[in-house]
């Protein structure tokens, strides 16, 4: 205890810190590219605190201080307070329903004065990761039991549910990243397989004509029964299983998916998902938009964002159009380019080479975190590390995929790159808590 206060850097993984610093710098550079005006003095505006990139610079400074503090703390703190923090996080999220400020249509921000707003859902990721790690690492938890798995799932699902209620679909989706961490701890692979099968079924429902899909599902079921007819004769249960799965699939395709799109999702969300597969969604079917029809006529949405985003990235070519030379960026063609679509400025300016190098940095970071996770002695640290890796991975994958048209548009920032104090702070805390835990890996935590 005594000597560690003298050398906080002892045992800290400097590779991650370097990667972190590089990514934050790239982020500020990207925001600078987006905000740059040819006639302005960039040095002045960097220091002025008026522009987004100078704000981001200030955020980065704050994060550096926070990071130092985290490295100075005792790693026991995190295990000790994990549940408490989780509880307060949930409380904060509930508080948004009362104190919340409406920004871009989602009521998930709490104003904290000075023009800054706090998004509790962001912070909740950390708390959830800690709480999950705490729960799984408990002596009495046997994660191979269904009960434990359900409780773990509930821990992750609670903030996700609250996010959906705040109209933050993207943030809610992030909580599904914890499945990866749980998988590592013994969650049956079938759940992941069933989950991804369901996703495939949903996409197929969107793309194909309902009747064609129903027929092809029936045909597949028939073929399976034909192949397994010998076994099916022996056991009735197999027969029932196949028919049951078939019924489930057709039911999903016929009733569940349309129900979700028409009754659960907002009109704009359905439209975005449909536009990704190249179809138009008829908003008149949407129950929620019906309800609001009196207030405001639904603007006819289109795929403008994705189109412009793809144009920006595509026009980069192999080596890009050069720093500050991208016309898509300079002409502000891509909406929300400094936050969710920050990847486009990179893709336009530095092309495929730039994107490739950039993604390699990310992948290296992820692999490094997984490696760190595997060298932990304590379950708590390992679960937490996997949570960090999967949260980062989920953000990167979804954000980049949505800018290149592989995923519908959901408001998920690119970690460490996108403009935004909450997001940067969240990822800083996530990573540096991990570093603190990793530095103390020799200590026997629980």
């Amino acid at each position: 205890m005594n000597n560690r206060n003298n050398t906080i850097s002892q045992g800290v993984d400097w590779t991650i810190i370097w990667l972190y610093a590089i990514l934050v710098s790239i982020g500020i550079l990207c925001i600078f590219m987006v905000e740059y005006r040819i006639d302005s003095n960039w040095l002045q505006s960097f220091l002025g605190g008026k522009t987004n990139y100078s704000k981001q610079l200030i955020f980065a400074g704050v994060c550096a201080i926070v990071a130092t503090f985290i490295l100075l703390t005792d790693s026991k703190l995190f295990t000790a307070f994990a549940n408490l923090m989780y509880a307060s996080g949930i409380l904060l999220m509930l508080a948004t329903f009362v104190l919340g400020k409406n920004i871009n249509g989602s009521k998930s921000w709490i104003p904290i004065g000075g023009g800054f707003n706090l998004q509790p859902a962001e912070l909740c990721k950390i708390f959830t990761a800690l709480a999950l790690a705490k729960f799984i690492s408990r002596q009495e938890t046997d994660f191979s039991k269904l009960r434990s798995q359900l409780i773990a799932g509930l821990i992750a699902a609670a903030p996700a549910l609250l996010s959906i209620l705040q109209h933050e679909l993207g943030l809610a989706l992030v909580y599904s990243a914890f499945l990866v961490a749980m998988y590592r701890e013994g969650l049956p692979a079938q759940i992941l397989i069933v989950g991804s099968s369901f996703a495939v079924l949903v996409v197929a429902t969107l793309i194909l004509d309902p009747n064609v899909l129903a027929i092809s599902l029936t045909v597949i079921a028939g073929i399976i029964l034909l192949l397994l007819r010998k076994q099916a004769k022996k056991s009735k249960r197999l027969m029932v299983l196949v028919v049951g799965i078939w019924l489930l699939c057709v039911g999903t395709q016929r009733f569940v998916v349309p129900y979700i799109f028409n009754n659960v999702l907002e009109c704009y969300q359905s439209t975005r998902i449909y536009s990704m597969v190249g179809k138009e969604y008829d908003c008149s079917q949407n129950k929620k938009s019906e309800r609001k029809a009196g207030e405001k006529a639904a603007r006819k949405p289109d795929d403008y964002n994705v189109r412009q985003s793809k144009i920006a990235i595509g026009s980069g070519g192999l080596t890009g159009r050069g720093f500050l030379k991208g016309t898509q960026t300079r002409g502000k063609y891509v909406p929300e380019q400094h936050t969710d679509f920050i990847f486009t400025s990179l893709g336009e300016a530095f092309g495929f080479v730039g994107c490739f190098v950039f993604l390699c940095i990310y992948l290296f970071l992820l692999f490094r975190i997984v490696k760190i996770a595997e060298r932990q002695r304590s379950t708590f640290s390992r679960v937490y590390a996997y949570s960090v890796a999967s949260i980062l991975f989920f953000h990167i994958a979804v954000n980049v995929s949505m800018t290149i048209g592989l995923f519908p548009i959901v408001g998920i920032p690119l970690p460490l790159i996108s403009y935004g104090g909450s997001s940067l702070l969240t990822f800083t805390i996530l990573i540096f808590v991990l570093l603190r835990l990793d530095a103390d890996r020799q200590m026997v935590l629980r």
Partner: protein
Amino acid sequence: MPVFNQSRGRIVQIIFAIVFLVIIGQLINLQLFSVKYKLAAENNAILRKVVYPDRGIIFDRKGRAILENTISYDLVVIPSETKGLDTASLCGLLNIDTAEYKKRIRDLIFKNGYVKPSVFEPLLTNEMFARLNENIYKFPGFSLTERSVRTYPYSAAGNVLGYIREVDTAYLRIHKDEGYQMGDYAGMTGLERYYEKVLMGQRGVKNFIRDNKSRIQGPYENGIYDTAAVAGKNIHTSLDVELQKLGEKLMTNKVGSIVAIDPKTGGILCMVSAPTYNPNYLTGSQNKRHLADLLLDPRLPLNNRGLTTRYAPGSTFKTVVGIIGLTEGVVDLNTTVVCPGYFTGCGTGKPKCLDKGVFQFTDAVAHSDNSYFSTVYKRFLEQNKFPSTDSAIGAFNVYANSFGLGHKLGVDLPFEKSGLIPTASNYYKEFGRKLFPCNLISNAIGQGKVETTLVQLANVMAIIANKGWYYTPHLVDSIEGGDDEGLLDEFKIKRHTDNRIPESVFNSVQDGMQAVVEYGTAVRSKIPDIIMCGKTGTVENYAKVNGVMKKQPDHSFFGAFAPRDNPRIAIAVICENSDQGARVAAPIASLIVEKYLRDSIKGKERQAMVEEYTNRVYLPPVMRMAIAKQDSLRRLRENQQLLEQKLNKKESDEGTDEESIGEEPTEQSVTPAAPVKKAPQPKPLPKKKPGTTPAALTNDDRKYKRTAR
């Protein structure tokens, strides 16, 4: 237990890697294999602005600019910046009402967007500009921008100079590879068309970056892809604008043309086509409507009658027949022919001859004796060396063609007609395969099937003046900065008539033509102290009226050159359906010649002549009928529309009311410019508002027309 799931760490890594590979795959697809995104980005962001150079200026022979550029102003508005505007006071200045203002702004936003500047009112009149310029600071979002427009300082020679218009799709199709775009202007007639490539200059392109609202952000790549505009070349013509103006004045209220050529160079001194129009009429803000008016005018003011109308040349053609006859030796100067009142050679009593008596060559020219030249023509065709009449016609045409007749001369104006020197085949339909000289006899006196343009006739006069050579008549002498296209090369080649024609023949014809003016048919057109050689022509003509061919008043022709010893001007004049050649065309020609040779008309008597001929009205009866018909049709339509309007008004008072207020002021701005300069005094025509502009609709007319819609 952790060891139990160790392998799953690897699987998680593999999942990460696979997803990243998918992303990179899509990036490869987007960035390396899709060209369309690069194009789409350029379409998005690069605004190509064409920089229009000033068109070249056209000068006359004394260096006076007769077609140049001037600055006009457009009222431009950026709709997004018009908040807090005093609409009422702006509308007061513009003479429109607020409803009209709102409608226009709405249309502009629809057409051009909310944040881009659009033209609210193009080509402001000077008065309007002055009014707006003082007050423009009061109107946020509005500004006045310059624009270069064509102007004709002398308001003359519209038919020669031509006009420019916005190109249409047909034009773009024809001139596919010349880089025209929709919205460009190009010369449509006259010199503006013929020398389009020279006058146009080279358009430049400036590339700008624009943002998502189409606002210009700055030059693209610092302008390395920009090209500079090169101004059009100025051209110097041989026209004498004062001569042109005098000609247009003399041809007031007549239909016809005057073409004068400098015989030594082939340069055209003036080319008047009557009725003409004020070329400035087609440059103002109302130019589209004005053009429509001119196009529908039954007097066809847009025609260039000097070049694009074919006339039977009448007796002026006798000079050519005489030259050919003397050259072939079918007659000599002492040959005599008797005129008993008609030509006796064919036994048909045609053609008639007016001055009875016995004629030798000189007097035959002087008195324009039809019998004499019919005899010459018949004798030429009957020569023994020709096996048939067909080959005789061929031989005659070889001579005639060498005078520049029967084919296009190659004047540097568009739409030139070739005229016709008939060949044997032209007669097969009428007379069968076997032709006799008597079938063709009316050609001898320039009637029948012989047709020339007035430029060809003036050129014949120049050839006689030069005694056997000419340069292709042309308007442009030189192009500033060099003639890169070789457009003027043809005008530097000296062309000769058939080499069998000796100079003595030209002298004899000149003697005869001098006699025409000294004591012959055109004696009243003699210019004191100037020896002019001329030849009158009086051409019978017919027109179809209500399906019946009716004889019309004669066309009056005169061809001349002067002075005889050192010819400086050769001229041809036609005045349609007026009188004998000696009575109208010859005096007009003599005035032009005097003006050119002396720079002014000398003597009170001659000056009085100018006024007298200016005031004469010779409007062809056919044209009068057409005008009357148009007028009555219009009145009929108006009455109908008035009736409809009344009915409409009963039904809905407001709608029509509003519009009529909105339209009225814009109509008023039309009035000052008279549409057709040479408007006849329409006394004989039943007209609602005599004295104003018959070619265009009058104010009241149009107002009703508009509102009823």
